[in-house]
């Protein structure tokens, strides 16, 4: 119930106050809620649909209060049919509405993937620019706790391989709000990958980020921590792990730079490559599987760029989820998921300390 502490109305009421004293703590769930609320208020064509998003206020309560504010015309409970409501939303986007589709989790988006990959992503191209598809597919993605193979996996690499889609993955509350607002305003189909384990996590939110005009540009990575020895490229939950790893590395005399990708497609190649040029070492961190993962793409970028290739002082290291479907037992799950220690060791390896 952390979100109740920072309800929209309270924040609005406190605005002059927060302006003076700037940063407050806001959980990711609340930041997402603010983004949707503000964009629905701003644009009548925006609506949200999914299973239990209205009366129940969302399986993870991201849509809390929206049904009461905007009614059943714009906050729509659907039958349990990913194929059906995703297809319906795509069709309504062809006719100029701006739907936000909530998947209870992205695992269930597999039941609608044809609509996302074959229709939403390609419609603008296939219609030669005649028909756009301004739509946001959002929900919990990546690993979760104790829910095993079919509820605990990352689809970032899947969706990011598809031209026509934009793929965003927020880490903090500011990311969540600023990127989701950008996604809703974007005229292209956007896959917005949230992280269940972060929904209840508090992050500082600046005065600026609390405002209604706070939008984070798509396609720009954020350097969360500057460093000179090794570059850690990561996104979503991996950012938190990497920042903690960087702290431990500092104690060991290694100054790591941590890049939060924010956007998986289009990738901010300039930021990534210039950091690697500077450090000469790179470690990628993601919860997804290794083969054809986001880390694979970063590694390929390093190979393909003459200058970066020459500047590498060590082989690229990838920290990924284990190459197995997620097991349930706690000890197995822990072994299948990237840990802080894995990142620390990989960084040390690039420094030839291991």
């Amino acid at each position, binding site marked *: 119930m952390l979100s109740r502490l920072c309800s929209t109305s309270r924040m609005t009421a406190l605005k002059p106050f927060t302006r003076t004293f700037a940063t407050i703590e806001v959980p990711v769930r609340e930041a997402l809620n603010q983004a949707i609320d503000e964009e629905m208020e701003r644009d*009548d064509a925006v*609506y949200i649909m999914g299973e239990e998003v209205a009366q129940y206020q969302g399986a993870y309560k991201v849509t809390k209060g929206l049904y009461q504010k905007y009614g059943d*015309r714009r906050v*729509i409970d*659907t*039958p349990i*049919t990913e*194929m*059906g*409501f*995703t*297809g*319906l*939303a*795509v*069709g*309504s*986007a*062809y*006719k*100029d*509405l701006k*739907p936000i589709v909530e998947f209870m989790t992205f695992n269930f988006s597999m039941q609608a993937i*044809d*609509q996302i990959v*074959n*229709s939403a992503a390609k*419609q*603008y*191209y*296939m*219609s*030669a*620019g*005649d*028909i*756009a598809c301004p739509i946001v597919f959002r929900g919990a993605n990546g690993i979760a706790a104790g829910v095993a193979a079919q509820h605990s996996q990352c689809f970032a690499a899947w969706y990011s391989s598809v*031209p*026509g889609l*934009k793929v965003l993955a927020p880490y903090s509350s500011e990311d969540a709000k600023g990127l989701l607002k950008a996604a809703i305003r974007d*005229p*292209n189909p956007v896959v917005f990958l949230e992280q269940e384990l972060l929904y209840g996590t508090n992050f500082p939110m600046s005065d600026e980020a609390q405002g209604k005009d706070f939008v984070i540009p798509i*396609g720009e990575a954020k350097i969360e921590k500057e460093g000179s020895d090794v570059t850690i490229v990561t996104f979503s939950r991996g950012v938190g792990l990497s920042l903690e790893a960087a702290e431990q590395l500092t104690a060991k005399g290694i100054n790591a730079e941590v890049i939060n990708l924010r956007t998986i497609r*289009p*990738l901010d*190649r*300039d930021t990534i490559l210039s950091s690697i040029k500077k450090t000469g070492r790179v470690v990628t961190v993601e919860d997804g599987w290794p083969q054809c993962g986001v880390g694979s793409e970063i590694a390929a970028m390093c190979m393909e760029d003459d200058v970066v290739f020459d500047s590498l002082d060590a082989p690229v290291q990838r920290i990924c989820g284990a190459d197995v479907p997620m097991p349930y037992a706690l000890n197995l799950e822990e072994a299948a998921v990237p840990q802080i220690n894995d990142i620390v060791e990989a960084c040390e390896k690039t420094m030839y300390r291991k």
Partner: protein
Amino acid sequence: MIRSAPLALRLSSRRLSSSISSQCSAFNGKGRLQSELCSKALTSLRGPSNRHFSSSTLHDISTVDIDSDSRIYAGDVPLPLTTDCTIFEADDIPTGKYPVFRVMDENGVIRDDAKGPQYIDPELNEEHAVKMFRTMSRLNVMDNIFLNAQRQGRISFYMSSQGEEAVHIGSASALDNKDVIFAQYRETGVLMWRGFTMSQFADQCFSNSGDLGKGRQMPVHYGSRALNFHTISSPLTTQLPQAAGAAYAMKMEAVRNGSNRAAGVTVCYFGDGAASEGDFHAAMNIAATMDAPIIFFCRNNGFAISTPVADQYRGDGIASRAKGYGMASIRVDGNDLFAVNAATARAKELALSENRPVLIETMSYRVGHHSTSDDSTRYRSTEEIKKWDNEDNPIDRFRRFCEAKGWLDEERVQTIRDEEKINVLQALESAEKKGPPALATMFDDVYKEKTPELERQEAKLLEHVAKYPERYTGPGH
């Protein structure tokens, strides 16, 4: 095959004081309607502006006379015929076989002098009839010539519509261009009726510089925003839930403008095979629960590529499924242009006036192969195909009607076919001469604005081509 019980039920529960049919007078020998009242009622079917009777009248006809005769349709199943254009409510679908609405028989004769004429536009004149005949002929001529062009290796792929011309023109002529079309792929005649030109068809199939789609889609994947015809999507049935979404969006647009009636109806075509996909169920259910003003238009032509309907479903076709979705429905003889037209007009009025979906199932036969990648004689006999083509040809049916009216004769029919042949050949030859789409257009329209990565890839490609001009001298570079 005739069941009287449901009729009795309807008579007792939903008797109307004035059905349309009781207001219509007889059809005289020359085929003219004499009842002005009936004429008005029909006119009201043709457009939202003229509403002489309430929308509820449309589907609240109390009596449906199922003729004693029946007809063999897809799957070799005999189905009862009716001359009542009743759109059945979900709780009112007849038990037994779902009847087929038919106005005109195989010989182009109006079946029921008392009721049949009410389903023919009283303002149907020679010009309009000949336009419909010409469009069906053009479609048929284009199919034959493009199929040959594919066999000659001039285009890579083609899908024809032979045997289903009346489904296309009958439904398209009941709509206007404000109505939104989501097609499967075998609805070329609908687009043709809306005004897609021969050159536009040919340019698309040749994927040349004139192609509206910039050479991005396989042949026959037409699309036109100007004509409100959504680009064809290859994966089967994805268009169904999307069409429900488009219908919903149009309803919402009306609501935002303070109206309860969408500017147009969304019509979503699909085949009997597509109805086996999961998307079909998803779309039906969500359209029903979202009260989307849409016509789901199933062309039951007997085959899904090689799979006959006998292997496709065990129930009574597709229309019977409407009951389970709480949806209104009607089954129509697809080779009868008038029946298709009347059913589509009524379905449109019902969908728009009451904001809900309607399912139409037209019964016809796919005379052509599935596509140029198919040889249908491997799974059905040539005799069967010929029998349908000769004995129940939708173009011939309408031609005979027009001949009886004195609007067409053998000479004029031949002239029309000759003219259309020239049109098609000219378009084909001209399309063949046009160059391919420019290489530089390849990176357009992936996103509204090119991403830095796309710009990088495009620049590299163009730089490479510029560096080796001797290697890239052909058209399109």
